């Protein structure tokens, strides 16, 4: 795994993340892919609506479970990425899915909202490199 973290790829990973600080210490699969399966970017939805979480090349485990190559989902709503080397905040803009949930139903006020997924390790700290989805924008009618 260390071999994959060459200076170049690390620099690229950090450059790709505008708000990136350092990463956490739990290694992530190099080909892990996190995405929001629904809604899609630009979608207009009626609240409440379902959001499902897509994760490839890694598994889901509840918070507190120490198993390599697993983590749990955090959904960021209308917020930038938090510091990537510490525990993800737990509030209305940072929802934790510590029971290993892979979808949720959201209720948001009308207007434009951003959604982004961030995978956390057993201690809710992002991985190294961070496993993060694209940030999408949706409109709630």
């Amino acid at each position, binding site marked *: 795994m260390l071999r994959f973290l060459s200076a170049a790829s690390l620099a690229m990973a950090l450059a790709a993340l505008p708000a990136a600080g350092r990463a956490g210490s739990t290694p992530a699969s190099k080909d892990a892919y996190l995405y929001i399966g629904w809604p899609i970017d630009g979608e207009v939805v009626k609240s409440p609506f379902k959001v499902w979480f897509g994760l490839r090349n890694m*598994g889901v485990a509840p918070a507190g*479970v120490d198993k390599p190559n697993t983590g749990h989902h955090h959904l960021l709503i209308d917020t930038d990425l938090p510091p990537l080397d510490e525990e993800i905040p737990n509030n209305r803009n940072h929802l934790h899915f510590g029971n290993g949930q892979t979808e949720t139903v959201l209720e948001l006020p009308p207007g434009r909202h951003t959604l982004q997924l961030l995978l956390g390790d057993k201690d809710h700290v992002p991985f190294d490199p961070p496993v993060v989805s694209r940030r999408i924008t949706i409109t709630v009618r």
Partner: protein
Amino acid sequence: MSIRLVTFALLVGGIGSAALPAAAVEPAPPGAKVYIIWPKSGQIITGGKFWLRMGLRNMGVAPAGIRKPGTGHHHLLIDADLPPAGEPIPNNRNHLHFGSGQTEARIELPPGRHTLQLVLGDADHVPFEPSLVSDRITVIVP
């Protein structure tokens, strides 16, 4: 919610132990549902390779061996009927285990019609009670 779950667990556990003396079958939380997000039934899959997306509602995913109420892990039945209740789901090419908590998997199927169905298993790969299974769908590989 947790009190309701516990009550339900005790209730089902009580009934389960009366009916099945030896097996401690994990109760399924109320409202839980397993489904195949993709592919859709009837989907034509050119080349036979695809990412299966596994959906789970009102429950969480945990790797095999993790005992946490309200969690389980996915198993995919390919061209197979449902396995018997109360015992571990077989592990072979027709019964794929996702014991690392995977929610997507790369699947490759030969040409022909194939059925796909998900079954959620508990920490010991035993189906829940009542069982949590998806619709059985058919896909076609030209």
